């Protein structure tokens, strides 16, 4: 099975200059936990609800004054949409993560694939990813 068959392709993004408060509001309204950060058509990072909690709130910064670029993660692990889902599972397990950004072969952002999406393709692959992941507790 290919990654494009299970990935989520409706991806809402943010920009480096948006405030972390605005990003949190998008996460609330869209029921998502992460947003790709796009600058000039390029993927420059990912910001998650946890980043806003740990890098803004925990350090006493004001979310209205803190830009997405100051709290986002810039190491974005990616895969290609035409790779097999077993490859996506391997990449997640090796990196101890639960989500990958999916690119087309022309390096445009095509979507995201999460361990939840993997579970719809294979319980076995998804569980391997969970066992390798950094604890969520």
């Amino acid at each position, binding site marked *: 099975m290919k990654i494009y068959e299970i990935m989520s392709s409706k991806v809402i993004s943010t920009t480096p200059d948006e405030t972390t408060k605005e990003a949190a509001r998008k996460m609330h309204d869209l029921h998502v936990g992460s947003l790709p950060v796009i600058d000039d058509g390029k993927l420059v990072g990912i910001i998650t609800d946890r980043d806003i909690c740990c890098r803004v709130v925990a350090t006493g910064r004001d979310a209205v004054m803190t830009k997405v670029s100051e709290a986002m993660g810039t190491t974005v692990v990616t895969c290609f949409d035409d790779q097999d889902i077993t490859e996506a599972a391997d990449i997640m397990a090796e990196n101890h993560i639960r989500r990958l950004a999916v690119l087309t072969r022309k390096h445009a952002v095509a979507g995201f694939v999460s361990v939840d999406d993997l579970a719809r393709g294979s319980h076995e692959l998804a569980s391997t990813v*969970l066992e390798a992941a950094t604890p969520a507790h």
Partner: protein
Amino acid sequence: MKIQELMSTEVASVRPDASLRQAARKMSELGVGTLLVLENDELLGIITDRDISVHAVAMGRDANWTDVKTVMTTDVVTCFNDQEISDAAQVMEEQHIRRLTVLNHDNKLAGLLSVDDLARGSHDLAGAVLEAATPLH
């Protein structure tokens, strides 16, 4: 297999009158995303990194002056430590959640059971829970 064989017994907690900033710092320092809200050993609720971002930051609340009890979830879904892991998986599926609070038969807190813990016992049960869960994207 029983829930107590897979659950995590080291559970981090916070007081209901702590500020969100204090809760966020605790999550950051301990590398966890969930804190149980306890007062005099009584379980009042649960608060996650996501709650802090989407229920406080997104709404423009000041994390220094908003306390944990304002944004915590008070409907805590529980199970007992001597139940079968298949029972736990069924409860998670029905409630579309990834984590249960585990009690002993004196109704005292015994631990937490996440879908990650389940994956160590059964790939199939964990996969089914992920498929039923509210999306993470």
